[in-house]
């Protein structure tokens, strides 16, 4: 009786203390944190297992709502993200199958290319995600388990989140919350074979039918492939088990990642008491200004904002615009709102590089909010990452074009809801050096106009731009106007022929990186690849993925003329023999990646032999069974 009372009183005392602490920090959160912590500390829920009050519900995904990239074509069902909906097609088999969902990249290869963007400082160590996908399920449940069926090279999942919004409701509520169900490090499974990945997920205080899975395939040997995602949960909210010993995690008592949400609700601290500070800070304020700036420059953004609240000196340092020359908001996509941007505005006068990719999820950031931020802070902007920013519209593109005339890098990857008219404003950014239009709806006239005016372009990504009818015209324009081009991504650009490629090779002699994957209209018999190799001696990356006509003569010409080659992909050709591949490996000492998957003459024995002869080269051979 008495031990029970003491236990209960301990439990309530700690809960009340937490309620006090959380109340003074951020009213906007309400009592959510307290409720959540109370629930968490109650320990694992009992009674689940089919015979619970609501019974356990197992659901496959109903619809794939959004994603950052995929390997397949738009409107196809091969290697595209839409394969994640419904029951699995391949699992438990392993292999490289068309019925799975595959992302566009894997490993670190793309980060080594000339077209890679420089990393942002202040990226939190816990943020690893490079790609994401969002799935809707039929019925909202309180999740008990999330199972990811990975059928090839598993290990990429780094974060699973759940949203409080039901994507199928007619009247969406204004407050939308994303909670992390599980997060981890990028990993690599011991074998490339299929597995069911079912991490231990946190308890959720609201029912959900919208999940987000973030991945990082940096450690993997080849493309990871996902077959299906299963959501297990209960309809009724799990009961708190009071008789269980409350499990109090030490981490709960300190401020966790939840405080990232508080970025938007910073209040400036009351005036400090100088006399009080002088005795206790160990002469910290005697340090030179630049040194404190250097120390503070190592903090992540939320810590920087929190530090600003501690005293006047540190507030001065933390709000110094020099600290905000590079701003990466991508890790905080779930918490960023218009109000957050408005609060950061006064500090960002010297902003040069801004990464707002993935933000604006479900209306948290609006076009107006972003535009007003840009109008204040965008004058000196040099690099702007806006991948998957669905709040963008024509008006925002116009504002970008007007306020950032010196913009050199613009990333609009997967902004597939952006109207084609919006791209006409990009041609006003005449200093552009890097432009990513992967999976956008840009049309031919707008693109030609961009190429006419943006003559400084060095890196251009037109992958999966399906609205462009004639790539030969685009290639001719590039050859004439963009002669400084160093990298060009024409992944799945269906209408490019040897005519356009020939002009491109003659005009853009500085090309180092060229991705012509799945451009099926190019025929090797026309000599276009040999001509390409002769014209581009600086070539470091050449992808001829799934071009079935690549043959020995092409490889021989590449071996002879392109000694700097590092990444080569000749997936799916039947006409390349082991001897010419060996010649290529011998002639190009800098080769690091060669993908010979589905090349019928290059079998695993040849791959093994070549790998032992050339240990520095990763020779990739995919399999289907």
């Amino acid at each position: 009786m008495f031990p029970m009372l003491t236990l209960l009183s301990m439990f309530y005392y700690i809960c009340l203390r937490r309620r006090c602490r959380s109340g003074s920090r951020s009213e906007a959160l309400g009592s959510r944190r307290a409720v959540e912590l109370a629930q968490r500390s109650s320990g694992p829920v009992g009674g689940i297992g089919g015979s619970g009050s609501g019974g356990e519900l197992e659901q496959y995904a109903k619809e794939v709502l959004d994603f950052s990239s995929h390997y397949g074509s738009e409107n196809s069902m091969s290697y595209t993200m839409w394969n994640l909906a419904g029951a699995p097609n391949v699992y438990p088999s392993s292999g490289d199958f068309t019925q799975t969902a595959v992302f566009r990249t894997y490993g670190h290869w793309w980060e080594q290319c000339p077209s890679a963007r420089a990393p942002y400082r202040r990226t939190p160590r816990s943020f690893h995600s490079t790609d994401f996908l969002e799935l809707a399920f039929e019925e909202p449940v309180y999740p008990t388990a999330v199972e990811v069926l990975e059928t090839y090279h598993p290990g990429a999942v780094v974060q699973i989140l759940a949203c409080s919004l039901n994507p199928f409701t007619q009247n969406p509520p204004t407050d939308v919350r994303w909670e992390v169900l599980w997060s981890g490090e990028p990993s690599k499974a011991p074998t490339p074979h299929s597995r069911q990945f079912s991490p231990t997920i946190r308890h959720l205080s609201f029912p959900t039918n919208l999940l987000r899975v973030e991945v990082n395939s940096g450690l993997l040997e080849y493309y990871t492939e996902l077959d299906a995602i299963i959501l297990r949960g209960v309809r009724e909210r799990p009961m708190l088990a009071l008789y269980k010993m409350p499990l109090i995690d030490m981490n709960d008592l300190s401020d966790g990642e939840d405080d990232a949400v508080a970025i938007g609700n910073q209040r400036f601290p009351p005036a400090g008491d100088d006399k009080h500070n002088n005795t206790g800070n160990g002469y910290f304020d005697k340090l030179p200004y630049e040194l404190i700036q250097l120390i503070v420059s190592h903090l992540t953004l939320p810590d920087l904002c929190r530090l600003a609240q501690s005293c006047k000196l540190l507030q001065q340092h933390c709000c110094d615009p020099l600290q905000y020359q590079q701003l990466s908001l991508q890790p905080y996509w779930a918490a960023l709102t218009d109000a957050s941007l408005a609060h950061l505005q006064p500090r960002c006068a010297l902003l040069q590089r801004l990464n707002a990719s993935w933000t604006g999820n479900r209306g948290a950031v609006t076009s107006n909010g972003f535009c007003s931020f840009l109008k204040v802070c965008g004058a000196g902007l040099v690099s702007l990452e806006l991948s998957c920013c669905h709040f963008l519209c024509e008006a925002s593109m116009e504002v970008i074009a007007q306020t950032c005339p010196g913009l050199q890098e613009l990333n609009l990857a997967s902004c597939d809801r952006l109207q084609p008219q919006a791209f006409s404003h990009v041609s006003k950014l005449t200093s552009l050096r890097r432009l990513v239009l992967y999976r956008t709806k840009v049309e031919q006239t707008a693109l030609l106009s961009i190429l006419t005016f943006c003559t400084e372009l060095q890196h251009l990504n037109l992958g999966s731009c399906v609205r462009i009818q004639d790539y030969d015209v685009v290639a001719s324009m590039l050859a004439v106007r963009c002669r400084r081009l160093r990298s060009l991504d024409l992944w799945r650009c269906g209408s490019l022929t040897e005519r356009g490629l020939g002009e491109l090779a003659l005009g853009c002699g500085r090309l180092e990186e060229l991705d012509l994957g799945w451009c099926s209209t190019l025929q090797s018999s026309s000599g276009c690849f040999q001509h390409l190799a002769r014209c581009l001696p600086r070539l470091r990356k050449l992808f001829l993925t799934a071009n079935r006509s690549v043959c020995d003569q092409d490889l021989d010409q590449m071996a002879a003329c392109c000694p700097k080659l590092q990444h080569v992909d000749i997936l799916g050709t039947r006409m390349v023999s082991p001897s010419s591949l060996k010649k290529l490996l011998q002639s190009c000492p800098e080769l690091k990646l060669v993908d010979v998957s589905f090349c019928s003459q290059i079998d695993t024995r040849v791959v093994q032999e070549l790998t032992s002869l050339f240990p520095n080269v990763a020779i990739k051979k995919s399999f289907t069974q």
Partner: protein
Amino acid sequence: MFSVISYGRLVARAVIGGLSQTDSRDYSLVTASFGFGKDFRKGILKKGMCYGDDACFIARHKSADVLGVADGVGGWRDYGVDPSQFSGTLMRTCERLVKEGRFIPSNPVGILTTSYYELLQNKAPLLGSSTACIVVLDRQSHRLHTANLGDSGFLVVRGGEVVHRSDEQQHYFNTPFQLSIAPPEAAGAVLSDSPDAADSSSFDVQIGDIILTATDGLFDNMPDYMILQELKKLKNTNYESIQQTAKSIAEQAHVLAYDPNYMSPFAQFACDNGLNVRGGKPDDITVLLSIVAEYTD
């Protein structure tokens, strides 16, 4: 008095007749398949619905029932390509398209076009060619939409008579229209028809209609009257009797194919074209037999 009764009966019949015209029930197809591969010595255990170089599929979606057959062109074997791979993958892809709802019931040619496009999206280089025949029943509108490319085809039998049939599409003797993917070095020399070249047709069907979809292995060995004879034996609309009838049709065609003295439709056609031959035509036989019935879940 009598005239009133007879007049009333007439009116009643007319009214009831008029009402029964608008049948708001959903229809569906009850389908069974059977077949024989040409070379039964092969013994390779293929995934179901593949008979030799032929392949077929039966699928359903919310609004439609879809069937298809494909006849892989055997000539590829001489070049080291397995002809059953192309037809099998084509049918598997059509099945997947239907199950995921990526089709319009009134446009079966679209199924072929999309499926052919998907074949080209496969990383593995697929080679080969095949004919194709797709039959779609729109459950609500009671219309049958078909697409046929090549010499496979279908028959619709109502009341013991053929009311619809498909036409064979041939370039020349024994060379039907075909979907194909050729190796790049031989792209000009290989016959490759576009999916748009398929013949399409749409017509209404009634409950009790029998639809026989098959590859040329059946039609080249069994003339219509024999097929109709076998179909007369079909009494019920349950799956077992349809399966039994499909089996007997396929078996009979298989026996006739190896009969050297029988004047098969194929031999008849050859003779008409100046080739003096007799006997059946050994070929892969695939038979899909369906009956239009009321939709039950």
